[in-house]
């Protein structure tokens, strides 16, 4: 059953009706991320697609407010017209999950904290959400935050709803920070270093003063990639300075300019280098642990098909041959010994119903997480089972 509220009040009515009938709701925009998370019975879907439209955009104030169902591409186009952007580079899940490209809504982007390669320098979606309106799992309309850059009035619930997969509240409106687009960008490609040394080069660059905005390593073509963006005069001097700074690595150096560079990073943002058949994981670690993690996974005999590193080694995308537990045990044992977390991004629904899609937590933290869920949605009416089997 598809519920299609037209406004916030309708959303509240729909959630109250669901509460009265104890009939859980899935929350979606255009459904581009419906295959993310634990597989659940999606019998009643609360579609926010009709809550669409930008309600406020003031470029000089660096702020934009949009209803949750507004297509991301509309927002990107509007910002682009004023030379601005969402600096956290929300990824497009289509190459990994299937479905049409460029089909996300802004509410979905916030609900999964979708962030791309520039996250390491510019922050994640959670760093750009200034305020929001929502309907909680209690059926109440609640607002939090504001439209200004600096605000510590009350708890920062923006952080809590970002990445909550709709389990706390159905977002109805979000207010985001908009930032200037860089005048130009270039990418230095260092090749021939091998995986370990290539990653070391990225980490060295990340401690340099040259304001590198993205750091990736792709083992398929043995390329360590470093993105520089800003005013042209600055990019050109930093590119040369950075190349000199990394001279001791003796790598072959190529430069991707402007459109080429943008194409490279949008492919990486969407994890296209690892797209294909099998199960897909996203692993977040300290940058120095990225390579160690992959090495240990290989030694443990995991059937790794493809992998790529972002965030200077702090983010590893993996594709493996499918298996009953999607290799969760092997992957998480290594991650736990290093510190970090592993999320199962793609696997058959049957696997995602059995295996913990999100990293298990120690018991005291798991209990607190559940109490936070209950604070917003005591009857588990929103996205029941999407994050955890128990709620």
């Amino acid at each position, binding site marked *: 059953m598809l519920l299609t509220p037209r406004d916030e009040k309708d959303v509240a009515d729909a959630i109250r009706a669901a509460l009265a009938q104890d009939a859980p709701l899935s929350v979606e925009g255009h459904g581009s991320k419906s295959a993310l998370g634990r597989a659940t019975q999606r019998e009643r879907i609360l579609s926010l697609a009709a809550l669409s439209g930008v309600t406020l955009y003031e470029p000089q104030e660096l702020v934009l407010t949009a209803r949750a169902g507004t297509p991301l591409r509309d927002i990107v186009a509007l910002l682009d017209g004023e030379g601005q952007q969402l600096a956290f580079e929300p990824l497009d899940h289509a190459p990994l999950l299937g479905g049409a490209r460029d089909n996300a809504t802004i509410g979905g982007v916030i609900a999964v*904290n979708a962030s791309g390669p520039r996250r390491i320098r510019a922050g994640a979606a959670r760093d750009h959400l200034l305020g929001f309106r929502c309907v909680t799992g209690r059926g109440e309309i609640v607002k*939090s935050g504001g439209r200004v850059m600096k605000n*510590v009035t009350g708890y920062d619930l923006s952080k*809590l709803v970002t990445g909550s997969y709709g389990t706390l509240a159905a977002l109805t409106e979000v207010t985001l920070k908009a930032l200037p687009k860089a005048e130009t960008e270039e990418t230095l490609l260092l090749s021939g270093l091998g995986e370990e040394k290539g990653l070391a080069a990225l980490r060295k660059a990340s401690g340099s003063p040259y304001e590198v905005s993205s750091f990736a390593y792709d083992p398929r073509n043995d390329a360590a990639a470093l993105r520089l963006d800003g005013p042209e005069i600055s990019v050109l001097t930093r590119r040369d300075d950075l190349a000199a700074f990394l001279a001791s690595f003796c790598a072959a150096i190529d430069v991707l300019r402007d459109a080429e560079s943008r194409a490279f990073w949008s492919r990486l943002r969407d994890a296209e280098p690892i797209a294909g058949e099998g199960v897909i994981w996203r692993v977040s670690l300290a*940058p120095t642990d990225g390579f160690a993690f992959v090495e240990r996974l290989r030694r443990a005999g995991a059937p790794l098909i493809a992998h790529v590193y972002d965030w200077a080694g*702090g983010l590893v995308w993996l594709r493996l041959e499918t298996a009953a537990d999607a290799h969760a045990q092997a992957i998480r044992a290594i991650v736990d010994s290093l510190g970090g977390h592993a999320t199962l991004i793609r696997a058959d629904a049957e696997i995602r119903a059995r295996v913990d899609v999100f990293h298990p937590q120690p018991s005291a933290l798991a209990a*607190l997480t559940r109490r936070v869920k209950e604070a917003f949605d005591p009857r588990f009416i929103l996205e029941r089972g999407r994050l955890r089997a128990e709620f």
Partner: protein
Amino acid sequence: MSLLMPLPEQAILARREELVARLRAILPAANVIADETARRAYECDALVMYRALPLVVALPETVAQVSAVMALAQEMNVKVVPRGAGTSLSGGALPLEDGILLGMSKFNRILEVDFENRCARVQPGVQNLAISKAVEYAGFYYAPDPSSQIACTIGGNVGENAGGVHCLKYGLTTNNILGLEIVLMGGDVLRLGGKHLDSELYDLIGLMTGSEGLLGVVTEVTVRLLRKPMSARGLLLAFPSVEAGARCVGAIIARGVIPGGLEMMDAATIRAVENFQPCGYPLDAGAIVIVELDGTPAEVDHLVAVAEQIARAEGATETRVSQSEAERLRFWAGRKNAFPAVSCIGPDYLCMDGTIPRGRLPEVLTRMDGLAKLHGLRVANVFHAGDGNLHPLILYDASKEGDIERAEKLGADILRLCVEVGGVLTGEHGVGVEKRDLMHAMFDETDLAQQQRVKCAFDPQHRLNPGKVFPTLHRCAELGMMHVQGGKLPFPDLPRF
């Protein structure tokens, strides 16, 4: 001094000796302060108009001790107020007469510096500036720089989500930490995050940051370290009016330039600063804007030229560009002295902290002026102009009958004005007790009830720092059942502070 706090619980006061004895079983004897004179040192934070003598002061040295104190507090049903350096401007560390004041000053070590992962693990009692000092030899720093940074501690920064003059470009505390260790009421120790980016499941690090000590006690912080920019230059721009200065600020940002620092002060502040310690600000200016641009030398030179050209076009009567590091620091010297300078003409002042949409500044200033006249007081203005964060300094004389009350009323009117034009009550100082009773200007009962339910998830008995942030205390059981309709509580006669 019309502040109402929760009434001290007689049952707790009666068990004071037992509490002190049991704390002494957990902590070294010298770390439990029961003597009245010694407790006086903790009776207020930087919001000095409100004071209370804590029941007892506990100074733990280890996480295990913090955990044991929190377990004891839960068992004896005693309130706990955490405190870092006590520099809160909103009364976040104001003690309770029936509560333990939990001082974190002994947690003063930097545990690990990890340049390769660009982070450091530090204890909460480490001073903000000490982190930057410890890593500057390698060219790194910790970005948030509240003006109290020589004294304030990182644990308190997390509690208040502290900002500073560089946050438009480099973010607030919440954008610059990777991990936390916290102790909950009852003693559970949780580690959140680490050296990696982004939380799994709910972002409890983001929630803890700015929670004003109401959710948990921070016992360790993993901060991000940034590489220092290669160069920085300052521009000192004079304008005939604050309105003209504000237009210039808007024009710089509209051009796509995000300066490292972007500050403004009005004529009253300029004169106060020049009286206090002359630093060469033009005394005939209606406003001064300080712009700091950082990055590679080529980029900085380019941006300085852009900013200077914009300033001229916007009617700057004077533009100075720093030609040396010493000159850049001189530009900042007056801004950094602004608060003490203003207190010399005051003799007392109340510092407000509202944030507004930048474009509304001229209107807000005109109306603020009217409000000040109405209350018969003067206001000097310092702004973090880039992010719209205002610090109106309300001048009053505490020795004059009724002046404090007038200043407080004017402050409340100014903050309501900020909210009315689309802004917020506090940009970086926190709600604490100071703005607690104004929360209804921004939130309705439904919004506040939801925030308090989050509090209940961490501290169902309201033992941790109660009386701060929320204008009404609800029992958690009651919040669980309460259904707020149309922003109105079903029981409007519930007790309020």
